[in-house]
């Protein structure tokens, strides 16, 4: 029968999983991501889970979601509206069905539509039967029944069997999306089979059977009239791995340590959504990465500053409220002029706000949230995979300029995942040239002056404790521009303040120019930064395809701005900045370029959808 189902060539498919938080939506999502990626598709995903540890099961508040977009071309967002929704219970149906594309498919576990479950979410009747879901292509599958049947002869409690419904679903999807089943079988084997860390033979067997049952179900029932067939994406050749932004940052920290020859050091305190970074990095002890989980955020950054002073490559990781606590100590790194990378995974604010939701509202805090005039470079990661590069670049600039650097990511890219082309250590830029500790033997006849500077980078001459014969004292009071001794001299303070600013400003000259997507001039320029990159890129691509006079720019370094930005901006009639905040980059752009930037603000704990950007641009184009 399978052969009867039409195999439709698709360019991209948007799939969403929804179910109870405890039900492993993220897991199944990641499995499909891997499956698609292994098959050569590009993938972008967006998890969405409640802020409670365990919101009551079966309730709307307890629904976890995981949306993803698979494509035969570069995919920049998790897509707007799902083509396929896999909703494991009535709550998930109620929660997510309204987002599905008209006519889209809803796959659900009809066994979970018990009267009690329906009642819990306020369904009067059964939506699978009473027309509630009219207009959708509903596939109601009795998953528990089918799985229990497939595992009938296995000695397992029913609850354990029911848990295999996820692999059953994978089977259905594998068939539906025309994927290679061997990949999933390998995966089960790796995870539970003999080679696994904790082999669980029975689980492996059960999941294998459930998976195959799913495959067969797709093939042999007449439920599916259509299959999707995605071609492979034109992505760069190489070794790939699916990775979250937080994991990518963690790896970059280890890698930057390795490539600089310095011991990498993280001083931190757990905070959602930055904790995963610390979790993963804590596993790298064998690579000599020191992680100190401190008593609070202030101690986190202070140990990192201490480690930097002692010559380690120092990092501190946090999210908004934690960054707020680190401000005074960030100023310490700034005035001591030691390298320090602050990775801030933004979340919904203000205050505790929406810890599990994404937002980009720490930009102005990163810019200005310190006493005194205190500028620092800010780099923003644009995707989960890009967190590696952004963190690595942050470390490089911190070392080269002896400055704290802020790396901004956000809950969406920090916790979301996408395929990442794994670099080899050989390919990564060598960071040792930027370390150049001052040692007397390299400067015969010279006296060490802690605040003597490289004329180009303005990085100060840096000697670390343990270096023979150049013991010296520095501190957080204003310092003499050469000796670093405490100075209350008025003109010295003016010079030092200007120098600290110049150091960051000058960085602009050596940063890569902003690249433009589209024509170099036109009606509307859309500027993205950080996590808005994907939606803006997708939207601008589509608008260009439609022949609209629209271009896009992404800001990687948010401060300082790339040198050509002003020029590019001046060539467009209108400038649009979509941001997951109340217009923070807009403030910086307006102040710098005196241009009437329009801000598209969204603070709903959710990234932009392409259509939101497209609609706004069309409005600006007067269409």
């Amino acid at each position, binding site marked *: 029968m399978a052969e009867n189902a039409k195999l439709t060539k698709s360019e991209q498919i948007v799939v969403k999983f929804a179910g109870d938080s405890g039900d492993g939506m993220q897991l199944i999502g990641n499995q499909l991501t891997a499956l698609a990626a292994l098959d050569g598709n590009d993938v972008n995903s967006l998890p969405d889970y409640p802020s409670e540890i365990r919101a009551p099961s079966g309730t709307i508040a307890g629904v976890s979601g995981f949306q993803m977009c698979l494509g035969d071309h570069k995919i920049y967002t998790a897509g707007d509206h799902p083509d396929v929704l896999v909703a494991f219970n009535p709550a998930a149906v109620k929660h997510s069905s309204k987002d599905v594309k008209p006519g889209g498919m809803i796959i659900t576990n009809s066994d979970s539509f018990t009267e009690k479950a329906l009642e819990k979410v306020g369904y009067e009747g059964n939506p699978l039967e009473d027309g509630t879901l009219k207009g959708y292509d509903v596939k109601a599958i009795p998953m528990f029944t089918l799985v229990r049947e497939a595992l009938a002869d296995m000695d397992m409690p029913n609850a354990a069997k029911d848990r295999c419904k996820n692999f059953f679903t994978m089977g259905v999807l594998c068939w539906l999306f025309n994927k290679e089943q061997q990949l999933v079988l390998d995966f089960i084997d790796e995870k539970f089979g003999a080679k696994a860390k904790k082999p669980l033979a029975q689980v492996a067997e059960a999941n294998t059977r459930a998976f195959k049952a799913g495959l067969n179900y797709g093939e042999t029932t007449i439920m599916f009239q259509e299959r999707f067939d995605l071609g492979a994406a034109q992505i760069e050749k190489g070794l790939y791995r699916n990775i979250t932004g937080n994991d990518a940052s963690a790896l970059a920290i280890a890698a930057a340590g390795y490539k600089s020859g310095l011991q990498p050091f993280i001083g931190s305190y757990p905070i959602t959504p930055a904790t995963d970074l610390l979790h993963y990095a804590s596993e790298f002890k064998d690579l000599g990465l020191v992680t100190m989980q401190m008593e609070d955020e202030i101690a986190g950054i202070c140990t990192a500053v201490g480690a930097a002073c002692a010559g380690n490559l120092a990092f501190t990781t946090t999210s908004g409220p934690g960054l707020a606590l680190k401000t005074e100590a960030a100023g310490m790194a700034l005035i001591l002029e030691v390298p320090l990378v602050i990775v801030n995974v933004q979340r919904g604010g203000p205050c505790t706000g929406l810890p599990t939701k994404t937002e980009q509202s720490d930009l102005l805090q990163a810019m200005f949230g310190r006493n005194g005039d205190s500028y620092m470079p800010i780099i923003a990661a644009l995707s989960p995979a890009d967190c590696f590069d952004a963190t690595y670049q942050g470390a490089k600039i911190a070392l080269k300029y002896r400055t704290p650097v802020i790396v901004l990511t956000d809950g969406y890219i920090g916790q979301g995942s996408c395929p990442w082309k794994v670099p080899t250590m050989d390919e990564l830029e060598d960071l040792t040239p930027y370390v150049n500790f001052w040692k007397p033997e390299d400067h015969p006849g010279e006296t060490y002056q802690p605040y003597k500077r490289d004329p180009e980078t303005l990085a100060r001459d840096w000697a670390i404790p343990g270096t023979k014969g150049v013991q*010296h004292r520095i501190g957080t009071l204003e310092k003499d521009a050469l000796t670093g001794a405490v100075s209350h001299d008025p003109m010295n303070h003016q010079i030092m303040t200007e120098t600290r600013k110049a150091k960051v400003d000058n960085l602009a000259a050596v940063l890569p120019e902003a690249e433009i997507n589209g024509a170099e001039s036109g009606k509307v320029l859309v500027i993205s930064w950080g996590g808005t990159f994907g939606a803006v890129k997708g939207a601008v691509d589509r608008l260009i395809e439609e022949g609209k006079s629209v271009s896009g720019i992404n800001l990687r370094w948010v401060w300082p701005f790339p040198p050509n930005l002003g020029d590019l901006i001046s060539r467009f009639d209108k400038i649009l900045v979509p941001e997951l905040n109340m217009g923070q980059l807009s403030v910086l752009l307006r102040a710098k370029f005196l241009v009437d930037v329009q801000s598209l603000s969204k603070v709903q704990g959710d990234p932009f959808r392409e259509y939101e950007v497209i609609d706004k641009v069309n409005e600006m184009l007067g269409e």
Partner: protein
Amino acid sequence: MADTQLNKKDFASDAEVKWCPGCGDFAIMNAVRSGMVAAGKPRDEVAIVSGIGCSSRFPYYMETYGFHTIHGRAAAVASGVKVANPKLDVWVVSGDGDSTAIGGNHFIHAIRRNINLNYVMINNKIYGLTKGQYSPTSEMGQYSKTSPYGVIDYPMIPLVAAMGVGATFIARGLDSIMKLSTEICERGAKHHGFSMMEIYANCVIYNDGAHKALSSKEEGPNNRIIVRHGEKMIFGTEDQFCLVQDGFGIKKATVADVAEGDILVHDEKDADMATVLAGMRPDADLPLALGIIYADDSKKTYDDMVYEQIDCVKSKLGRTMDQLLQEGHTWNV
């Protein structure tokens, strides 16, 4: 200069010392220099970290590496320095306010972790640098700029607090008893673990005479006891007083009145006794304990454990960076 020949003067930087004439910090600086000599490290392998306060100006006056950081955070910064570079001899010098007020949290956690730092808390029971506000160690009723009608906070006893979070070394000195401060700094420098050295200092400007009851020639010896491991706890201008056990506590007695065997003998390895000793206060008719009250080298330090764990994981897993980057589920395009 050969490392072995260092003496106290070698640890003096050429910066002009800017404390008020008569400030107790001068004497303590001297004692710390002795401690550094005792530690035996060359000056370029010594780092001093301080917070903010008069006392925290300390690093500038020492010919070592020095970091004058921010208020209250010296313990955290120093923890980073020590863990990042364990071969350094790392000292912290911090005031009572710096350590127990804004820095209280880092202070107790550094002690709890037993990080191998030499921590000198200069306790003048006042905020000197900001010109005379009471601190957590100020006495109940003390007048100061922010307590014009008297302090209503109970004072913290830093050494008792330190014992409360698992200190492995506590000692208390007094600026005016130079020999003792030196002894403390020398022992503290050598203690493997967090060495908590509280030294009372006189702030001549904002809290002059705060320790007079302890330091005065006439009454001082009656109000303090210098404890020494293995020695009987006897004190007083004429050695007329002694300490005896009283339940789980200690009480003062007259030597003449007690059997010799009942006089307590100091055991610097007895944590329970140390807690009680550290808490003795003249206002409860007990002498203030000076000297090395507790010293136990048997607990591993945090910094040692960091590298032990790293070595252990290295030998178990020992991945290369490339292996790490490529771990998990990978595929080739």
